[in-house]
């Protein structure tokens, strides 16, 4: 977007201003960003915002409906779960866990993905082939099945969920970085840098990498939402975060038996997952369109 002609402004806009101009025209993306920021604030300041602790059990207050319905209690705004824990507090603390998982998975797979992708592109030959075959293999196993395999070896926990989901999404980044790096190789500025005597490490990270960043940022943003979904699915299957951790997927699993009697215990955690994933996806779509119109896929 930065090199697009801007006839109205006299001074060319800086890269960030140009990005924001394009981004803010997409109403869905801005909406997504606002919701996402709200969720981030809730997650960071959960200790102050949440009315109660996520694991405190109130005796005699179990399975209360939301405050505005019959039988609700004004102290428990969204009601309580089967153990008398405040739903609202659990959902707020859950945001912290889900965002933490999403961001950790994204950072781990982006960092390793950049390293492996650049190595594959620069080394070529046998190393490239072996790396790419391994990535093919990872991609050929259905994501959830692979995550299940990893978790069943390592045992179910929050950390292992992050490891498992990172493995699942690693190939996307490796392939993306390798592909964009290879596309840059033939260009004049790389040859110029080589002629000037730039070493391989500097060539990798300082010369080539910045030019592959736009698609990587988009992939990373959408990767966060995928990771949240995948981790919630593992939590739901009982293979992710363990009780009493207020992870949204695990909360849903606990709530399954109350479908008939207490529908809100089932409805709320899922709604929280949906809203956060939708907001990140809308934001990611906007990011894609604003950063590089060529990337528009669907």
């Amino acid at each position, binding site marked *: 977007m930065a090199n697009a002609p801007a006839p109205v402004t006299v001074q060319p806009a800086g890269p960030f201003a140009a990005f924001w101009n394009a981004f803010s025209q997409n109403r869905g993306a801005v909406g997504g960003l606002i919701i996402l920021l709200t969720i981030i604030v809730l997650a960071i300041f959960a200790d102050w915002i949440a009315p109660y602790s996520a694991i405190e059990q109130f005796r005699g207050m179990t399975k209360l409906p939301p405050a505005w319905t019959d039988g609700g209690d004004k102290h428990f705004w969204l009601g309580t779960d089967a153990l008398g824990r405040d739903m609202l507090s659990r959902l707020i603390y859950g945001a912290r866990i889900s965002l933490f998982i999403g961001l950790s998975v994204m950072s781990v797979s982006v960092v390793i993905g950049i390293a492996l992708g650049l190595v594959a592109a620069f080394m070529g030959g046998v190393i490239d082939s072996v790396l790419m075959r391994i990535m093919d293999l990872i991609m050929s*196993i259905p*994501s959830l*099945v692979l995550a*299940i395999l990893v978790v*069943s070896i390592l045992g179910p926990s929050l950390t292992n969920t992050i490891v498992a989901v990172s493995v699942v999404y690693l190939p996307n980044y490796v392939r993306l970085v390798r592909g964009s790096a290879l596309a840059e190789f033939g260009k004049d500025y790389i040859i110029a840098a080589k002629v000037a005597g730039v070493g391989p490490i500097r060539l990798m990270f300082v010369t080539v990498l910045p030019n592959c960043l736009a698609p990587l940022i988009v992939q990373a943003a959408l990767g966060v939402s995928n990771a949240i979904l995948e981790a919630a*699915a593992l939590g739901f299957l009982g293979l992710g975060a363990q009780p009493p951790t207020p992870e949204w997927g695990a909360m849903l699993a606990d709530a399954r038996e109350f479908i008939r009697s207490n529908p809100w215990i089932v409805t709320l955690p899922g709604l929280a*997952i*949906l809203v956060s994933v939708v907001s990140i996806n809308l934001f990611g779509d906007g990011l894609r369109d604003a950063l590089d119109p060529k990337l528009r896929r*669907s």
Partner: protein
Amino acid sequence: MIKFILRRLLLTIPTFIALMFVTFIAIRLVPGDPVEVRTGEHGISPERLAYFRHELGLDQPVWKQFLDYVWHLLHGDFGVSLSSNEKVLTEFLTLFPATLELSFAGILFAVLLGIPAGVFAAVKRGSWFDHTLMGAAVAGFSMPIFWWGLLLIMLVSEGWHLTPVAGRIDMIKFYFEPTTGFMLIDSLLSDQKGAFLSALHHLVLPMIVLGTVPLAVIARMTRSSMLEVLSEDYVRTARAKGLSEFRVISLHALRNALIPVVTVVGLQVGGLLAGAVLTETIFSWPGVGKWLIDSIGRRDYPALQGGILLISSLVIIINLLVDLLYGAINPRIRHG
């Protein structure tokens, strides 16, 4: 073309070897003594331990164990399930038709709704239908399908009593020996009145749940692909010839717009199997996905190992077929 097929086949072999290696290693990384893990016995006596170590080939060098493992796999021996004492392959093949039926139904639902919806949105670009559909599509592929399933059970099954909650057919009223393993076909063959309807009733909700994410992806893809095609010269030519709008869209535009859509449908296969794991768990659908999850709960590692190997091989083979199909349709891929 033959060269392309051969090259593509050769590329698959290392992937298969790596897959066998990963599943071979995986079971070794499971915490605990391998004999205890495999036999499911705890506090085993030293004599029995030595006996089992020999029996399971664990006293051999690792490379020989791996070759043995591959040898067995190539002969269709995927091990024996600890919980049922049945061959893993037999168990898998008994349950697989249920997963296949569900997946077929899911993708059919997604294609039959997604393509017309996408075409209509593209033709009526900017209309309220277009906006609603694209909004719904974002929600669709962001959907945690395990929650979506519970929500539908809550509304449709518990609230309105329209569909059953679990299973493939009403087991109390109908019983027949499976012939094809596909409940819809078997129920028709059984000649029992109402059996087919019962099977159909059981299929509706799981089909919608599994089909939701592909539906969103297909609708979005069809729309953008149609938008691209509609601005092509040959579409303008067709209009200029005075063809009816219906002919222009359904014959000239749609046929060309469908190529990327077919690609997307092919790419959904892996995701469909992952979705089947969740869908089957929610609806107690007796397929391989639920079996896999149950195997984890029972610590039935041979079943888990064999199941993952079989499911992944299947995805590799389907991806290979899809690739070959594109090569046949589109020469540019063949030589790329």
